[in-house]
């Protein structure tokens, strides 16, 4: 039977692939997209794994929150291998009256242990930074040099110290491990920073010790030994296998999301795949009828056609994989230049194999239903042409196979993802969206059908005819809604989220947000600082609070790393957090449980914890936390929970301790200032001149940085959504092409009945525009709902429908179907009725 089916399959395929263009386009686009995204993700992951030492700057890094390692810790590190020390902080770099916020990095002679710093002029790093006449050298990123108009030899000020600008940093090997940057990089020596008074106790800075260990060293055992020797060190450990965890996590999650977008494209393409197979089988009815009459069983015929589809699908999958790999090979070098991490843009087999498997699973899933009727159809039905190959109920066994296939597909997608939960939720969303879109398509077709019989429609015959055609069964409206609605809906959601985020960021500035944050205000500077600010016109409320940084090490006696917590609060335990002390709750906070300590409280340390994060960490009032501040563990009892409105951008902290808990701990102050935009320049100049150690952070600049970041994410997601839309358009084109014969016949009949070409054109255009309008409106509905849910539940803010993006989506959907419809209307409009009618008569 198999040999016979194979022969039939090959003979039938001699007819060519004409009916499979949409089938192939959908499969190639979906598989190609998944292969490309998977390849880029692999390239970055592999690149980061291969260059872990360089990215980290050592085999191991121990990072201390605003203190250097003590002698014992330093001795331990020196015993392990070569050690290099760096410090990092934020400060203002100024030249004359011009100043800019910078990410400052102080390095020692051993830096970098791995990789090389490239500079303008090609000098060596040590030479460039070496002090001349006791003034240390300094390098900056080109963007900062341009902004301040720096030329080598210029004298600049960093904090309270003077430095000589020596050139620009062209490449910094360990840049990716530095995390979120609020400004461009400035590099000088640790010693220079120390001499400028920037490493005094209380100032917010981090010290990192990079260790180069001998080959073969067991890094994991080394960590265990460090934890055992210094259990209260409060140091953050990173090693070469996890050099830039933030970037790695982002790449994995964003990659997983984009692969889902590819799978969404396959899901949309599935509509085209299924209708292409259905159309093919309809054309093959005479052959199928002949085979069955000659004695071929239903199973044999099924096998013969399943083999044909499998061969064509195989071709599409190979082409898709080649497209994905080719795109990455072509654009990889370009992409590589704009990535913050090294990437290995060679061919990676794993993502290509996965893309091929996804493609095969999708092809099987979407062709099984239309193929299944071949096993059940009776020869007499075929001979009488009672059946047209239309999709119909395939029977429970086939449905069971389909459900199993779909489940296997879902398990593969989830199992192969680095972020299974995210993928499972998104996959559920995609499946839900396709089902809901299909249902909405049916409901809308029904509603349009009803509308075609309304009094209004009766008075507008052209509209009635179009409504009737769009609402008719077999008109393909539900398919159009799915094909176009998914991609347009994703674009709607992104457009609305983007617009709302921008509105949220921009609108908050004039209302409740401060214009500046100031950090590193020394205790004795606080009052003069207030006076200086008050003397500047256009300044408003000034708030301040003591500021220390600490690492949360224990939750009610359980080491933080072992505690069972809600993953949403994992960030609280990651690295050091700002800590303050206060005699009263900060403005705008509301105690939700427990009580605040009395003024002059002198008992065991107490802490007020932000309610949402506290509960996510599994804490309760009365339990304890241990926080490591300056190497000293402080255990405090949770006295209360308080609600914190982070978006207000006022000063607030996850943890506020009772003042006695931090008595004597050296610290600085943080301040927020409301001010008119016109006063911002004067504030920067005055504080820069009078208190150079105080670092002002302009909120407006940071919002621009966040906006830019969001914009880039939005752009990447938009490209993904466009891939879904492209597949949707391919499906629409396929559907329009498949319906051309029907439109020819219809145009011929309408001409016989006296309709002019103009009337027929308006009729066809109106129905195309109507179906696109419906798809656009449905996309707007579900995309808007998705955006509302994201803004309400994820960003905890209000949602406003942004009209421009919404109108663009609806018009876009209408225009797409209209253009495709008009393109395929040319043939039917120009045809002589007699030709069509003669063909129809046989």
């Amino acid at each position, binding site marked *: 039977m198999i040999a016979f089916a194979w022969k039939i399959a090959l003979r039938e395929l001699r007819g060519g692939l004409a009916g499979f263009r949409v089938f192939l386009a959908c499969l190639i686009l979906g598989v190609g997209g998944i292969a490309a995204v998977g390849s880029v993700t692999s390239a970055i992951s592999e690149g980061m794994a291969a260059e872990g030492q360089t990215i980290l700057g050592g085999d191991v890094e121990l990072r201390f929150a605003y203190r250097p390692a003590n002698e014992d810790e330093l001795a331990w590190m020196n015993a392990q291998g070569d050690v290099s020390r760096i410090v990092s902080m934020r400060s203002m770099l100024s030249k004359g009256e011009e100043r800019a916020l910078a990410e400052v990095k102080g390095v020692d002679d051993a830096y970098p242990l791995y990789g090389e710093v490239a500079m303008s002029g090609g000098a060596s790093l040590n030479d460039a930074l070496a002090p001349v006449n006791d003034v240390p050298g300094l390098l900056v990123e080109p963007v900062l040099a341009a902004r301040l108009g720096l030329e080598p030899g210029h004298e600049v000020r960093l904090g309270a110290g003077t430095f000589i600008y020596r050139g620009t940093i062209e490449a910094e090997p360990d840049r990716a491990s530095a995390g979120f940057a609020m400004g461009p990089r400035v590099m000088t020596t640790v010693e220079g920073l120390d001499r400028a008074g920037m490493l005094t106790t209380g100032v917010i800075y981090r010290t990192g010790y990079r260790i180069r260990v001998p080959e073969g060293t067991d890094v994991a055992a080394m960590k265990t030994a460090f934890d055992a020797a210094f259990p209260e060190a409060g140091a953050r450990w990173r090693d070469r296998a996890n050099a830039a965890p933030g970037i790695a996590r982002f790449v994995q999650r964003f990659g997983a999301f984009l692969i889902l977008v590819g799978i969404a494209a396959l899901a949309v393409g599935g509509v085209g795949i299924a209708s292409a197979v259905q159309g093919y089988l309809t054309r093959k009815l005479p052959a199928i009828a002949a085979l069955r009459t000659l004695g071929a069983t239903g199973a044999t015929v099924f096998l013969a056609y399943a083999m044909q589809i499998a061969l064509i699908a195989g071709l599409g999958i190979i082409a898709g994989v080649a497209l994905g790999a080719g795109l990455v090979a072509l654009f990889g070098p370009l992409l590589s230049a704009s990535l913050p991490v090294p990437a290995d843009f060679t061919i990676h087999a794993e993502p290509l194999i996965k893309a091929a498997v996804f493609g095969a699973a999708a092809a099987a899933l979407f062709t099984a239903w239309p193929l299944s009727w071949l096993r059940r159809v009776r020869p007499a039905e075929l001979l009488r042409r009672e059946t047209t190959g239309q999709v119909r109920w395939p029977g429970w066994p086939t449905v069971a196979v389909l459900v199993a296939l779909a489940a296997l597909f879902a398990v593969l997608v989830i199992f192969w993802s680095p972020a299974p939960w995210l993928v499972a939720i998104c996959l559920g969303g995609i499946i839900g969206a396709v089902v809901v879109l299909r249902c909405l398509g049916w409901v809308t077709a029904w509603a349009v059908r009803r509308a075609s019989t309304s009094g209004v429609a009766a008075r507008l015959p052209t509209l009635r005819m179009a409504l009737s055609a769009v609402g008719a069964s077999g008109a393909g409206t539900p398919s159009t809604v799915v094909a176009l609605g998914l991609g347009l809906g994703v674009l709607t959601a992104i457009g609305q989220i983007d617009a709302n985020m921008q509105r949220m960021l921009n609108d908050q500035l004039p209302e409740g947000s401060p214009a500046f944050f100031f950090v590193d205000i020394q205790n004795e500077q606080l009052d003069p600082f207030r006076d200086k600010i008050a003397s500047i016109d256009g300044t408003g409320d000034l708030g301040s609070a003591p500021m220390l940084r600490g690492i949360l090490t224990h939750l009610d006696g359980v080491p933080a790393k072992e505690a069972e917590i809600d993953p949403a609060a994992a960030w609280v335990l990651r690295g050091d957090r700002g800590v303050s002390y206060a005699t009263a709750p900060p403005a705008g906070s509301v105690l939700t449980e427990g009580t605040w300590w009395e003024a002059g409280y002198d008992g065991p340390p107490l802490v007020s914890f932000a309610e949402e994060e506290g509960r996510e960490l599994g804490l309760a009032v009365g339990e304890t936390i241990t926080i490591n501040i300056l190497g000293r563990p402080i255990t405090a009892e949770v006295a209360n929970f308080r609600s914190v409105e982070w978006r207000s951008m006022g000063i607030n902290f996850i943890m506020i301790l009772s003042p006695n808990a931090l008595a004597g701990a050296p610290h600085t102050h943080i301040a927020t200032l409301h001010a008119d935009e016109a006063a911002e320049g004067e504030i920067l100049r005055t504080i820069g001149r009078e208190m150079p150690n105080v670092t002002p952070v302009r909120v407006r600049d940071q919002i621009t940085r966040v906006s830019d970041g969001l914009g880039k994410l939005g752009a990447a997601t938009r490209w993904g959504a466009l891939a879904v839309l492209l597949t949707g358009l391919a499906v629409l084109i396929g559907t329009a092409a498949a319906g051309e014969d029907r439109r020819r016949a219809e145009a011929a009949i309408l001409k016989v009945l006296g309709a002019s070409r*103009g009337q027929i054109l308006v009729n066809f255009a109106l129905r195309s525009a109507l179906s696109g309008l419906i798809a656009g409106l449905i996309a707007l509905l579900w995309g808007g709902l998705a955006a509302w849910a994201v803004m309400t539940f994820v960003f905890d803010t209000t949602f406003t429908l942004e009209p421009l993006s919404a109108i663009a989506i609806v018009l876009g959907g209408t225009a797409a179907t209209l253009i495709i419809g008009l393109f395929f209307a040319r043939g039917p409009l120009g045809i002589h009725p007699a030709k069509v009618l003669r063909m129809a008569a046989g």
Partner: protein
Amino acid sequence: MAEPLVKLEDVGLTLPSQAGDVEILKNISLDIGAGEQIAIVGPSGSGKSSLLMLLGGLEPATNGAISVLGQDLRNADEDTLARLRRGRMGVIFQSFQLIPTMTALENVLVPLEITGAPDAKAAATRALEEVELGHRIDHYPAQMSGGEQQRVALARALAPGPVLLLADEPTGNLDGETGAHVTDLIFRLAEQHGTTLVLVTHSEALATRCARQIRLSDGRIAA
């Protein structure tokens, strides 16, 4: 003498084919007066349907002059021909040619709406009732038998009250009994509406129901 409704003078039709041009009709001259009932008969391939297409302005003649309902069809463009048919000419085909995405009522509504007839829905419903399909107005073509579909086509052709009804093998796809029923309806309604009828058929029995027969053989009028 009144001007004939249809006048053909030395008309010929040549169509291209893969094997070269084929001369379908040759030197056809014919007058059809208002209210006449004419059968066009002849063997398969004699050019009957092609002649009907020429009369309906559905196919341009290769040579000769055709005038239908006072309009010279020579050099008339597609839209002029469509306007000629609009409301004044009904056509029925062997294969029904209903629009599959429209119900029976909507199919009948189309020519009325194209002509801008007032109260089109009532007129379409009446037309369907005349062909005994008042109970199936909301059914799609695929939900109806061949006889019912042809009756919808008849209602559609007659609903705007045409002057000329062209019928191309209207019973060719129907069984004897159904065909007879449809034929009875065509003749009864044509007479009732005073419509000129041109009927293409293989059936001699059906042809004899028309007052005049035109026999075609090898593309020429034989008698």
